[in-house]
C-alpha cells in the first residue's frame, strides 16, 4: 500500500476497501518512522491531517467523491497555507503564518485532498540540492548520503520514500523535474500561466510554476487537472488556455507516428555516461513503441544557463525586498536605526545562497550594467524560445535527460556554486521558454535513478503526458522504490 500510486489509492477508497483516515494514518506513521532520517517534512500536524481525512470520509458518505477525495498530498514550504507556518525554509520567514491559502491550495482543498504537511526545500527555492534549507538538509531515500535534488527536494524525497503518495513542488529552473529525476519519481512543470502563482512565495516571477510530483504519469495528470485554471487575481495566469482532458491524455499505450526530437545539445561529452546510456536506451524503447526519433538542434541551449542566472536573480532581488523586518518575518534585536534594522534583519534572516542571488540580481539591474546583463539575457531568452518554436515545427515532443548526473553526495558541491548551477543545465531552457516539461524515471546509473525529460509545445501538456504514459506502460521503472524504506528496488 505505501508505494501505491494515487490512482490505486483512489480506487481502494472508492471501493470502500479503505478510508481516508486509514490512508492518512498509514502515511503519518511512515512520516513518524522515517522523517528524522530524511528531513523531507519541515512541518507536520498529525491531528490536523486526521481531521481533514475524517471530514473527507464524511463528505464521501454524503456526496459524490471529489476528484482527489481523501488523497494525501504534501506541499512544498513555498505554498502559503492558512494552516501551519509557511516559511520557505528561510529564517527570515521563521514562524510566519500566512493569513491566506495559495490558489492551488484552495483548489486542492476543493478537490477533496488531504494536505499532509510542508516539505523541505532550498531556501526560497534557490538551489538544486535542498542543502540551502534553513531547516537542515534533506536526504535522498535511495542513498541518504546523497542529495534529493532541489529545490523541491523535500517533496521528491517524501514521494520516493512513500511518506506521501504525492506532493506539490514548484519549478523555476528545474526544481520539480531535477529532484524527481534524482529520486526516481515523476514530476510535471505545466506551461507558464497554466497554474495560478497567487499565494506561492515568489522566487522568479516570470519563471515560477507549480506542479505535481508523484509516482506515476496518471497521478501527475490527476493533480494537474485539479490545480489548473485561470485565476483573475494572477495577471500572468492565462484566461483562455486551451483545455485538456488530463486523464484521457494518459490512456496512450503506444507511440505510433509520434515524432520525438532528440536535441544534440542535450547529449554531450561531460555528462555522466551511464545517464546518457539510460536515456539513449529509453529512446530506443520509444522507437520500438512506434515513435520516430528525429535529431534536432536547439542551438542556443548553451547560453540558457547564463541567461537564467541573470534573469532569475534579477527578479528575485526585487521579490525578496519585502523581507525587510518592517511588517513580518525576522527583525533583528535592538536596531540602532532604519539602515541597521534593514541590514541586520536581512543579514541574519537570509542564507548565503539567497544573499548571493540577491547581490547578483541587484548588480545585473544596476545602472550601467542593465544593458549588458539583464537586457542581453532577455534577448537570449527570446532566442531560446525561438529554438523551441522552430523545433516544434518538426517534432511533437522533445526528449532529453532531465539532469546530466545522478544524485551527488551531500556537501559535494556546496562550495562550488557554478558546478551546482550546472545540474540544471537541461531543465532551465524549458522555464525560459515557458513550456511544459515532465521528468519520469527511465533507469538507473551508478545504482541511482535517472530521469527522462519530455518537453512539449506551450499548452500541450497532453503530448507530454501521453508520451510519458506510453513509455511508463512499456517499462517497469515506476515500480522501483528504495528498499531501505520498505520498497522494491
Amino acid at each position, binding site marked *: 500500500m505505501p508505494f501505491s500510486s494515487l490512482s490505486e489509492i483512489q480506487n481502494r477508497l472508492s471501493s470502500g476497501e479503505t478510508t481516508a483516515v486509514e490512508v492518512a494514518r498509514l502515511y503519518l506513521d511512515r512520516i513518524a518512522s522515517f522523517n528524522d532520517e530524511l528531513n523531507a517534512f519541515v512541518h507536520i500536524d498529525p491531528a490536523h491531517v486526521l481531521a481533514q481525512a475524517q471530514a473527507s470520509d464524511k463528505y464521501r458518505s454524503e456526496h459524490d467523491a471529489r476528484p482527489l477525495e481523501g488523497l494525501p498530498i504534501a506541499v512544498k514550504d513555498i505554498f502559503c497555507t492558512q494552516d501551519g507556518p509557511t516559511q520557505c525554509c528561510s529564517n527570515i520567514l521563521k514562524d510566519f503564518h500566512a*493569513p491566506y491559502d*495559495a490558489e492551488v491550495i484552495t483548489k486542492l482543498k476543493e478537490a477533496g485532498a488531504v494536505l499532509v504537511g510542508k516539505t523541505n526545500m532550498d531556501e526560497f527555492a534557490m538551489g538544486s540540492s535542498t542543502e540551502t534549507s534553513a531547516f537542515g538538509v534533506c536526504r535522498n531515500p535511495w542513498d541518504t548520503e546523497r542529495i534529493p535534488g532541489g529545490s523541491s527536494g523535500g517533496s521528491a524525497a517524501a514521494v520516493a520514500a512513500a511518506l506521501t503518495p504525492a506532493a506539490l513542488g514548484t519549478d523555476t529552473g528545474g526544481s520539480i523535474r531535477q529532484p524527481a529525476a534524482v529520486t526516481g519519481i515523476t514530476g510535471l512543470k505545466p506551461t507558464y500561466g497554466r497554474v495560478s502563482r497567487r499565494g506561492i512565495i515568489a522566487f522568479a516571477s516570470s519563471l515560477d510554476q507549480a506542479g505535481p510530483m508523484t509516482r506515476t504519469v496518471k497521478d501527475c495528470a490527476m493533480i494537474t487537472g485539479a490545480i489548473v485554471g485561470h485565476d483573475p487575481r494572477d*495577471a500572468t495566469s492565462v484566461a483562455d488556455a486551451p483545455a485538456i482532458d488530463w486523464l484521457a491524455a494518459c490512456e496512450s499505450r503506444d507511440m505510433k507516428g509520434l515524432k520525438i526530437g532528440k536535441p544534440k545539445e542535450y547529449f554531450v561529452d561531460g555528462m555522466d555516461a551511464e545517464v546518457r546510456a539510460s536515456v539513449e536506451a529509453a529512446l530506443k524503447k520509444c522507437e520500438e513503441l512506434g515513435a520516430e526519433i528525429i535529431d534536432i538542434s536547439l542551438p542556443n541551449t548553451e547560453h540558457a544557463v547564463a541567461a537564467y542566472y541573470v534573469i532569475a536573480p534579477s527578479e528575485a532581488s526585487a521579490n*525578496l525586498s*519585502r523581507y525587510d523586518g518592517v511588517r513580518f518575518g525576522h527583525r533583528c534585536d535592538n536596531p540602532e536605526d*532604519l539602515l541597521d534594522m534593514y541590514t541586520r534583519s536581512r543579514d541574519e534572516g537570509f542564507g548565503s545562497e539567497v544573499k548571493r542571488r540577491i547581490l547578483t540580481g*541587484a548588480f545585473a*539591474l544596476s545602472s550601467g550594467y542593465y544593458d549588458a546583463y539583464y537586457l542581453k539575457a532577455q534577448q537570449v531568452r527570446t532566442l531560446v524560445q525561438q529554438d523551441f518554436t522552430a523545433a516544434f515545427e518538426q517534432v511533437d515532443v522533445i526528449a532529453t535527460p532531465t539532469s546530466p548526473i545522478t544524485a551527488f553526495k551531500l556537501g559535494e558541491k556546496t562550495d562550488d556554486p557554478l558546478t551546482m548551477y550546472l545540474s540544471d543545465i537541461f531543465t532551465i531552457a524549458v522555464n525560459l521558454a515557458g513550456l511544459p516539461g515532465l521528468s519520469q524515471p527511465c533507469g538507473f546509473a551508478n545504482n541511482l535513478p535517472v530521469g527522462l525529460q519530455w518537453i512539449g509545445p506551450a499548452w500541450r501538456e497532453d503530448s507530454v503526458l501521453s508520451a510519458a504514459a506510453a513509455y511508463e506502460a512499456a517499462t517497469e521503472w515506476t515500480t522501483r522504490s528504495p528498499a531501505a524504506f520498505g520498497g522494491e528496488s
Partner: protein
Amino acid sequence: MSWEVVIGLEVHCQINTDTKAFCGCSTEFGAEPNTQTCPVCLGMPGQLPVLNTVAVDKTILTGLAINAHINLESKFDRKNYFYPDLPKGYQISQFAVPLVVGGYIDIPTKDGGEKRLGITRIHMEEDAGKSMHEGLDAVSHIDLNRSGVPLMEIVSEPDMRSADEAIAYLKQLHQLIRFLGVSGADMEKGQFRCDANISVRRPGEPFGTRTEMKNMNSFRFIKQAIEFEVLRQIEIIEDGGEVVQESRLWDSVKCESRSMRSKEEAHDYRYFPEPDLPPLRVSQQEVDAIKAGMPELPGQLRKRFETEYGLSSYDADVLTQTLESAAWYESLVAAHPADPKRCANWMANELLGRLNDAGKDLSESPVSAARLAELLNRIGDNTISGKAAKDVFDAMMESTDSVDAIIEAKGLKQVSDSGAIDAIILEVMAANPAQVEGYRGGKDKLMGFFVGQVMKASRGTANPGMVNQRLLELLKG
C-alpha cells in the same frame, strides 16, 4: 546681462478610483490607519497585482485632453528602493514605455496670446504609504492606507521660463484634471503634488545644472520656492560658484529650501520590467470610446460661453473655473433665459463675491440657481430695480423667505405709476429751484443730479426708465 529661468514640472496626481491600483482596497481618504489594506497592498508573500482598468481609462482620458499620443501597448516596471512605507521594496511604475506620450497645454500670455508648453509623458504608478515621525519618541508609525493608490505622473518639458508660467501651467492642468473628473486634485490631501526641476542660464546658452525642488503643497509655495531657488542659483553663479545637481526640500515655514540628497546619493532604482503584469494593451476602439465620452474642456466651455451667451472673456473665464460653476451658471440661464449677461454679472460679481467674502464654496451657497433666477426675473419684469435687488439678495443670503416676500417686507417694490413718480419729481424740483433754472438754461448734465435725487427720494423703488422719461417731460417746463 539677464538670466533665463528654465523650469520643468513633475505632477503626481491621485486618480480618483474607488479601489486601489492593484487590489480591491478602498481609496477613501482619512480612514483609521491601516484599515484599508489587504495582503496585496501590504506586500505579503505570494500576493500579486491586478491592474485597475478604471485608472487606465482615466489616464487615457487625461492623455487625450492634453492632445497626447496613447501607446496602445505600454509596460509596467519595478522601481526598487527600500523605505518602510513601501511594502514590497519596489514601486510598480511605468518607466520604459508609458501609457501616454507627447502632449501639450496652452497657457495665456500677457500680450493676449498663447504659449504652448510640452508634456513629455504621463505614466501610471502606485502611491506609497505614509510614514509618521512627528510627536513620536524614537519610533515611526506607518499607515499603509495610501499604499497602492493609483497615481499618474505628468512630466512636462523644460518649457517654462518663469515662476508665473509654471503656476499658469499648474493651474491649467489642475483645472483640466478636475474637469475631466479623473482626480479630486485636492492639494491639501496630497492628491496633486508637484516637484519642480529648476535651472538658470544666459539666454541662448545650453541648459544650466538643475536642481529638483520637492515638498511644495500649494500654488503659493510653489511660486515662492521657484523664485527662491532661481535667486539662489543666480547668486551662486554670479559669485563664481557652480550649481550642484541635487534634490532640495522646500520649507514653507522658514521660506527656504535645504539640500535633501545630492546626485551621488541619488537612488539607483534598478528599473526592470514588472514580471507580474503582462504588457498593458488597449485597442484603438477603446481609446476612441474614451475620446467620445470626453466632457467639454475648460477652453471649449469658455469659448461656448462667449459665443452662446455673449459673455465677455473675463466673465466666461470666471464662470468656467470649475465644472460645478459652469453647470450652476447654465442652470441659472435656463431659469432666467431672458438675459444671460445679467445672469453672468449676478453670479460672478454678486454671488461669487459674497461667497468668497464668507469663505464658502459654490456648493455651500445658501441661494440656489433657481432662487437667484426668481430675483433676476423680478428685475426683468420691472418689479424691482437692479439696485434694490442687491438689498433683496443680501437678505436672501440670510433667509429662506421667498423673493417676493422679501421685496414686500422691505418695501422695495418698484414704483412704475407715473402719477406717483410725477409727485416725487415735482417735490424734488420744488426743493431745487436753482438747478431747475440751470437745466432749463442749457446745463443738460444736471439730468443726472435729478435722477439721483428722485431715486433717493423714492428709496430706490422708482422705475429708473420712467424716472428718466418723466424728468425730461417735466423739466421742459
